[in-house]
């Protein structure tokens, strides 16, 4: 009778070097999707510091919310995380649109080209955002 065993490098993710466009698109889409969900929680946490803020304090920028935001924006690492977030979101949206076309049965024979296009566009958008995100911080 046949037996099964772990054939090491042959099995699924151990073969990542051999993955082609469609598979990479899938991995990156799931990854970016879940990163966005993770961001949603930190986003809510930061926004919640605005709850019950005294309008007087807010006007002079000494309320918790403004302080928290200014504190975060002052950290260089936060600026880089923001760039990362943009990259992740832009890729997810562009590849998401690609997947919607795939669902409609459009352009399936150029699915690899459209994946590369979303990567390149993501890179361009990220690069052009650098002055905005790093302005004043460097």
């Amino acid at each position, binding site marked *: 009778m046949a037996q099964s065993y*772990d054939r090491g490098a042959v099995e699924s993710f151990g073969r990542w070097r051999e993955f082609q466009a*469609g598979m990479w698109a899938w991995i990156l889409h799931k990854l970016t999707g879940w990163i966005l969900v993770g961001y949603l929680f930190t986003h809510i946490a930061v926004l919640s510091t605005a709850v019950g803020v005294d309008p007087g304090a807010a006007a002079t920028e000494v309320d918790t919310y403004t302080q928290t935001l200014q504190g975060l924006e002052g950290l260089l690492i936060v600026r880089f995380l923001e760039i990362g977030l943009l990259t992740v979101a832009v890729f997810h949206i562009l590849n998401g649109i690609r997947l919607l076309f795939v669902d409609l049965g459009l352009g399936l024979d150029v699915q690899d080209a459209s994946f590369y296009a979303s990567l390149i566009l993501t890179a361009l958008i990220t690069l052009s955002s650098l002055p905005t995100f790093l302005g004043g911080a460097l």
Partner: protein
Amino acid sequence: MSTQLEQETEIEEEPTESRESVAERLSEKRREQIQEDLDTAEKTIQLKVFRYDPEIEGKMEPRFDSFTVPFHKGMTVLDALIYARDRYDSSLTFRHSCRQAVCGSDALFVNGQQRLGCKTQLGDLEHPIRIEPLPHQDVVKDLVVDMQHFYDQMEAVEPYFDPDELPEGELEEQRQTPENREKVKLSTRCIWCGACMSSCNIAAGDNEYLGPAAINKAYRFAMDEREGTDRKKERLRIVEQEHGVWRCQTQFSCTEVCPKDIPLTEHIQALKRESIKNNLKFW
């Protein structure tokens, strides 16, 4: 049963040992023969072939054997395997029959991709050439895998033409419009080789998933206008079940490896849309 998980014995080790010295155990005469072949060939090519035989003492440990074979222009991976079997080791086991990409016997994992041995030119590959049995299927011996599960999934979509009405005379043709023929044309090419199923990450994780080939087969009949609307509904019911079309995550692996160039992902997506339409339709 297609949906039952079989009891399996797991052997955890990865094959590390590689025997380079197959030739050393051959007779003097055979070795001279091989040497002559190698000397007269354009060049020589090295194969690293997966070996495993759970029934023979000493072969139960998976390993790779190395064979040096003479290369001639136009030679395929299957030709090289046949040479290795005929000259080096008659116990080297693999399936083949037609040698022309028709019978679907020799889907193998060659240099990290599912390919048909008889349709893959040796000249197009990087050396040494690594030949393994199809991943995600149980290995029976050497390069032979157990295809039963794959066949069960194919059967599950009832892959038989089932028209609404038969033509009048017994010898009449069952006519189809050219447009409709065009629509199902590519899907009819499947040779049941199992390459697609083996490449599919979802099928690897979900043993009950019908898999690309079976869904393609369902497409072939569901889209055939000669079958009636009721039959089409039944066919859609099979593919829209939990382990049917909706498992597909459009990774395109199956489409990449299919030796008959069937646009599998496209057909799966078409059936997804078809089953949504079928369920929304209330008139």
